[in-house]
């Protein structure tokens, strides 16, 4: 099994989001970067598959040198080698184009992405990547089993789940469930040491995007919460009915 895992470097989930330069840029000051949580589920599943079936796990990230700590973390978790495509990620199409150009002639059996990156929430890279490579995709993928040349996957549909099957290669976009939280891999000391010398190739990027985030804003601040006594739930019901008009 030759597995490719796409890793995006994103602000930690507890980050307070603010913008700089007249609301034209995300304010990165003091922000901690982590492996996109969905990619972490995918990487952990890739490690399990490698241990079961043999093979290699390569990661790919489109980003500048500042993404390398996150890439090293993926290597510490157990990826064999990593590739960084040296470009500022601008949108899903550019990222998917870069990854497709890299993966095209490498004969990966399985490509794992996350179901979306938690920063710009495009959710579009897996489908675009699969379309560019002319292969099937499953997004979100909450279970992934491989047997021979066949991947059996579970995806979410509105109102339940669907089980589907595809020949390899396939793109699977990880959602929690692909592994359980308890199965998430955490780097240990040996892994961290080993990661320092594992190969991290840097290749130039050349694709361009077709969308651009021009400005950002934050949701309007909420009015103060109206407190109601626990002995007076009728008042709450009354307010929900007459003031909020939601029931």
């Amino acid at each position, binding site marked *: 099994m030759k597995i490719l895992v796409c890793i995006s470097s994103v602000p930690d989930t507890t980050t307070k989001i603010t913008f700089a330069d007249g609301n034209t840029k995300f304010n990165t000051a003091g922000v901690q970067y982590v492996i996109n949580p969905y990619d972490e589920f995918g990487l952990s599943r890739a490690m399990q598959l490698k241990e079961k079936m043999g093979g290699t796990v390569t990661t790919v990230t489109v980003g500048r040198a500042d993404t390398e700590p996150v890439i090293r973390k993926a290597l510490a978790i157990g990826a064999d080698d990593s590739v960084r495509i040296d470009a500022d990620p601008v949108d899903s199409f550019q990222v998917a184009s870069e990854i497709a150009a890299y993966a095209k002639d490498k004969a990966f059996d399985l490509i794992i992405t996350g179901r979306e990156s938690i920063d*710009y929430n495009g959710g579009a890279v897996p489908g675009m990547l699969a379309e560019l490579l002319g292969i099937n995709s499953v997004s979100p993928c909450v279970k992934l089993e491989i047997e021979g040349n066949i991947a059996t996957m579970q995806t979410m549909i509105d109102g339940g789940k669907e089980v589907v099957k595809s020949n390899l290669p396939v793109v699977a976009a990880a959602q929690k469930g692909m592994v359980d939280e308890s199965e998430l891999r955490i780097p240990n000391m040996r892994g961290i040491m080993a990661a320092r010398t594992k190969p991290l190739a840097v290749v130039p990027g050349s694709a361009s995007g077709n969308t651009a985030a021009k400005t950002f804003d934050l949701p309007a601040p909420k009015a103060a919460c109206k407190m109601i006594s626990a002995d007076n739930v009728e008042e709450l019901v009354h307010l929900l009915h007459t003031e909020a008009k939601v029931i």
Partner: protein
Amino acid sequence: MSVLVFAENWDGSFKKSTYEAVSYASSLAAKVGGSATAVVIGNVSDTNALGKYGATKALQFDGDNMNHQGIASILAQAAQATGAKYIVFNGTWKAKGAAPRLAVKLNASIATEVVELPSSTTPFNVKKKVFSGKAFAHVEMAGDVKIIVLSTNAYGVHENAVSIAVEKGSGAATEKDVSLQHVEYQKTAGKINLTEAELVVSAGRGMKDPGNWGMVEALAETLGAATACSKPVADIGWRPHHEHVGQTGIAVAPNLYIAIGISGAIQHLAGISSSKKIVVINTDPEAPFFKAADYGIVGDALQVIPKLTEAIKKLKG
């Protein structure tokens, strides 16, 4: 100029999210000077219903329960046949899966999680959710063809009845498009779909014991609401995982979100920030959730919920 809209159906019937996409598409068509054409894939008994939300035409294609690839393939053929410059999708899993594939096929730009009509059409500028709803971006879309995927419940359903012409679309998915094989469905029967729900009752670790969920369900049932939960509650198996709301779970956008015994961690708030009104019930007056709430009760959930259910029953008579 024709605006296409993917009119998703479930076993032959439409849902609210379909009408939301059609509503958006017809308003967009009015803005760019054109009309909205719905693309229906598979057999639907009441395609005319789409006219109520402003679709002047519906193109009907064969193919039941089509996968992402098949949907993208059919829409690409419909877009080419109609010369559509804009294609609108609802925010369901299927639509979110198909739209990126279509973008590549048509060499179109795409924006997902879109919450409003474009603020300008030249250049084409839309507002979308970023950072899991903690912020918005105003995105300029280039390219000749633009694909818009809505954030569920953000734009809403707007009636705008027009007369609709239903035609058979020409084209079909190829064998390769449908090479992803369907094996089986595992449907959560009878439940209100959480991502589309207008009312949601959600509970967290403050409920103390899974045995206490009966009163949460009774409240939800009285309201006609969907049930949801915080992540730890799903992790310890008190509730099924598909109910877990938040950054790593699902995002909801109801008119009313009632949060019971949930502290209001930032990762939980990421999944509910699009709720129009929020009620928080918590023993701790300092619980961070109160900062995000519209109405709050400091009190023990186990005491408050049954009273609340009774009061709602009284209201409903």
